[in-house]
Structure formats: C-alpha cells, structure tokens
C-alpha cells in the first residue's frame, strides 16, 4: 500500500479530565506532519479501541494522570488483541511512576513518557516505533 501521512489517535481514558498535556501533544504531532485524531476526555478503553479501528491509526497515545494507568492500559491492550489489532501501537504519557513502567511495557505498552520529557524525544521515539511497525507489516 502506498504510504500517506501516518495517523495517530490521542485520547484520555478514565475519569481524569486534565487535557492540557494531551492537547499539547496533539499540536506537536500535527506540526510534525501526523494526522491526529483527538477524541477528548473521559472515554472507556472500548470507545478508544473501536475508534482506533475505524480510523485505521498506526498508534494510540493515551494521557493518564489519574493513577489508574495499569488497569486502563491493560484493558486497552486486551481489547486490541481481542479485535485482532495487536499491531496497533500503544504509548502512554502522564504522571506514571517509574516503578510501574516495566510492568506496562510487559503488557504491550511500547513507550511511556513521564512529565518533563522533551517533545523532540517523544517525536524521535514515535518515529522509530512507527518505522519498525511499517517494516513489520
């Protein structure tokens, strides 16, 4: 298939409504040439996964500040597997303790960006992840 601009979904799962970080990331990605679907706040993992399928995104980026990241991200990766879409990458950002990161990686989260991560380093990581995914397909 001919490659067009890469599509990314940015959203927030669970009940926290602080979307400044998510909106900032949307702008950074847009300016880097991505087509970003922004779903807004307070969505369930199922809503995020169904949206990602319809939008045919390469990557889902979820912002979590609530502390419920382990449970919610697990639900997202499980649902993706259930829907035969485990090839869609999932990354997370927000207030996530460093000690939780290995566990999140083990459940299939490709990268975790904690507060203070420079936007360029996020872009570099995403480009590498998406590049590797395209090669695999």
């Amino acid at each position, binding site marked *: *298939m*001919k*490659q*067009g*601009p890469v*599509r990314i979904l940015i959203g927030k799962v669970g009940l926290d409504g602080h979307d400044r970080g998510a909106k900032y990331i*949307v*702008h950074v*990605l*847009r*300016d*880097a*040439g*991505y*087509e*970003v*679907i*922004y*779903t*807004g706040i307070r*969505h*369930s993992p*199922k*809503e*995020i996964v*169904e*949206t990602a*399928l*319809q*939008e*045919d995104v390469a990557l889902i980026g979820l912002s979590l500040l609530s502390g419920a990241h382990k449970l919610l991200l697990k639900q997202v990766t499980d649902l993706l597997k259930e*829907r*035969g*879409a485990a090839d869609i990458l999932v990354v997370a950002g927000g207030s996530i303790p460093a000690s939780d990161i290995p566990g999140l990686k083990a459940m299939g989260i490709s990268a975790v960006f904690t507060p203070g991560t420079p936007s360029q380093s996020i872009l570099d990581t995403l480009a590498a992840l998406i590049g590797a995914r395209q090669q695999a*397909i």
Partner: protein
Amino acid sequence: MTEDPKELVRLVREDRNQRVRAVARLMTWIENDPERMPELLVGAADWPSARMVIGLTGPPGCGKSLLVDRLITAWRAQNPVGRIGVIAVDASSPFTRGAFLGDRLRMMSHATDANVFIRSAASRGHIGGLMLGVRGFVRVLGLAGCQVILIETVGVGQNETEITDVADLVVVAIDPGHGDVIQLLKSGLMEVGDIFVVNKADREGAAQLHAQLLSVLRLKAQGKTGRIPDVCLVSALHRRGVVELIDLFEKRAAAAEGEWQFRRRHMIFDEVKEAVLEESRRRILQAVGREQMATEDFQRILRGEVTVAGLVDEIFQRVIGTSIHKVEHHG
C-alpha cells in the same frame, strides 16, 4: 491484515469479525492512492449503496459536528437495525501536511455502537476541502451496509461547493454572530444548500438570522422555477429541531429518489475525470518542483532572459509536450 483492496472488499462483504478493520483499511488505501480508485470501482457495480448521502457544510464553529452527533442519535432511535456512516473532513496543514482531526470528539457517544461507522479525513491539500477520496469512502460505506451517509466538510465557507458532486442533498449550516446580511448574499456556500440550518437557535440573533436568510432565499428565487431551499431553526446543543430535520431529509428523498439514483450512476464519469486530473496535477507539480524553480529557471527570469509568461509556456510544453497556445486553439 491484508493490504490488497480486492481481498479487503471480500472481507467487508463476508467476514463479520474483520469487517470494521477491513472497511478502515480500504479507506486508507483510497486516501493514500486516490488515482487508483477507478481500479477498485471496476468491480463495484454490484456493491450495495446508501439510500441517502447527506453533505453538511458551513463555516467553522457553526456546530456541524455536534449536529452530526445529534442526527446520528435521532436516526438510530428511529432505525434500531439501520447502519449509518459518517465522513468528517478537517483541514490539513499546507506547511507540514499534518492535521488535527477534531470533529469526531463531538461524536464519541457513538463510539461503541456497531451500527455507526465514523471516519475522520484530512483534506490533504485539496482546494474545496473535499478530496477525491471522499467519493471512494461513500462507496465503501455503502458496501459496508450503511443506509445513510453523512459527510461533514472542512467548513472553509465560500469554497465549499464540491460537496454537491458527492452528496444527494446538501445542508448548509450557519449560526448567528458572524456578520450581517451581506454575508448571505455572497457567492459560493449560500448557493449550494438544498436545506439551510440556522443552528444555535438558543442564542441571541438566531431568529433575526433566520428571517434574513428567508428573505434572501426568496429574493434569489424570484422569477426562477425550481425548489426554494428549506430553512430550519435547530439547536443541536438542546436537541431541538433535529427530528424535524431528519423528516425533511426523508421527504426530499421520497420526492427525488429516481433523480438521485440517476445522478449516482453518472458519478463514475466524474470519478474517472477526477482521477485523471489528480494524476495530472501530481505530475505537473513534480515537473515544476519548487527547488528547480528557485534555481535555474528563476535566475533566468531575474536575468531577463525569459518572461514569466514565456517560462509558464516552457514548463507547460515540458509536461504536456505542446505549447499552451496550441492547446487553447484546439480547445
């Protein structure tokens, strides 16, 4: 999942479990390679197609996305087993090619409804805001069993006329607070509406805008035959006037169904034409690449060795193989 369009079409038709992904993939294929669409459509003569394709346009911020959300809710309540598709177009950046696709945010309450398929699309530099790919999207949603398709355009106002080529019925939404009656008299947007929606009816100035719009439309219709567009006052926010709008769609559909079917059959001609134009545009842009212009050709203009008109003709000859003047004579 496969990337072969023919195989994807088969999956949409036959594999319930993979249908959503196959539809989405097929749309990506169309979007990335629109000039190859006729290839796909060769086999599409027997595809099911939607009963109604509604285009929704209007200036940014007038409430199009929320109106789409409310239309889906109301239509799904009336049609518990019906399937509805939405194409929501937002602008691409002409500088970075990136896009912030935010229409869908207003429609998230339907995210888990298996009978609603929503797809955001970036305009990817096409002037009217509607890319060739939208036609393909409409066909694919038809194949996926959608009876009704709603297309929400970018909403850059006065250029948004391409939608009339794709939709059976065009709805133009406006809202109070953006200029006076002079805006309603301008060309473009105000000419494409089969139905006008004055949204945000809950706000100050809506009744006045409604009255102005009615008088403008009556003025335009004077001495002409044909239908005067319907005008509806709607408050998408408060869900007022939405069911009435759907009733109006149905009335229009019942009155014009034969005509719509006829138009659809002739769309294949437009599709081929647009694919050819798209490919030509691509090749011409390739031939007059920015860097080449900036160097030698541009220097020649600065040195006075060639006029701008002369250079245009030169480039034209390079691409088309004949002089611009010759083409005009033949044309």
